């Protein structure tokens, strides 16, 4: 998505028919992340505050992200830094921040909100990630509600 001004905060929200615990597992466990995050598999769970978690391309040839876990409050809130290392132009930009919030709703649903902010020093990253988050969030919903990853990630 290309906007006319640099967006310093992006918000994505979706209702998923799953418990907060299942969503928490999906966004922190490397095996689960590999199923909806463009096939990337982090080298550690995103649950240890202060730890750095690196994610690689599916063939492990290229480092995609190297993010520090800032907050981990299961099954409600996960905060980590963000740098897009998959592209040289983006890798040189400043670190930004990603916050995942999970709130239980009625009827077995949970509300998942992803906020990507502190993008002031990363305008190219801001432009690059917006379409990606949309695919990741819709893929996560499909995975948890049907048990199947979106086929587009397998191509």
């Amino acid at each position, binding site marked *: *998505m290309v*906007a*006319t*001004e640099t*967006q*310093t*905060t*992006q*918000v*994505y*929200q*979706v*209702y998923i*028919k799953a418990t907060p615990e299942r969503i928490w597992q999906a966004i922190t466990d490397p095996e689960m992340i590999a199923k909806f995050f463009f096939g990337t598999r982090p080298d550690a769970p995103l649950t240890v505050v202060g730890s750095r978690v690196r994610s690689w391309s599916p063939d492990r040839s290229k480092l995609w992200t190297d993010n520090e876990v800032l907050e981990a409050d299961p099954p409600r809130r996960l905060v980590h830094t963000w740098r897009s290392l998959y592209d040289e132009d983006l890798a040189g930009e400043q670190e930004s921040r990603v916050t995942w919030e999970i709130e239980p709703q009625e*009827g077995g*649903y949970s509300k998942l*909100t992803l*906020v990507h902010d502190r993008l002031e020093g990363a305008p190219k990253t801001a432009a690059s990630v*917006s379409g990606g988050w*949309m*695919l990741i*969030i*819709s893929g996560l*919903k*499909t995975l948890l509600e049907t048990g199947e990853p*979106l086929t587009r990630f397998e191509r």
Partner: protein
Amino acid sequence: MDGDDDRVFKALADPTRRHLLDRLFERDGRTLHELVSELEMTRFGVMKHLRVLEEAGLVVSRRRGRHKLHFLNPVPIRLIHDRWIDKYTEARVAAILELKDELEKEA
């Protein structure tokens, strides 16, 4: 949830609400005051439309200090795309590719 698509389609079926989404697309995270000042509409009118957009999940509001900021949430449109557009366009594209193969075979 059930009826989600209905709410999104209804929210998008109004030109003022589409205009509001376009304003947020240009610059996200705006206050009600900012949105009112850009539209030729009463504060009450803008609030009413924002509420419909929020109920459809197309706008998400978040507090920052004393301000309530409104953000465009593109996910419901993505889900509609996955459900209603991908399915049909994929079949269309496949049919065109088949036709191309057939015609090229004859050539």
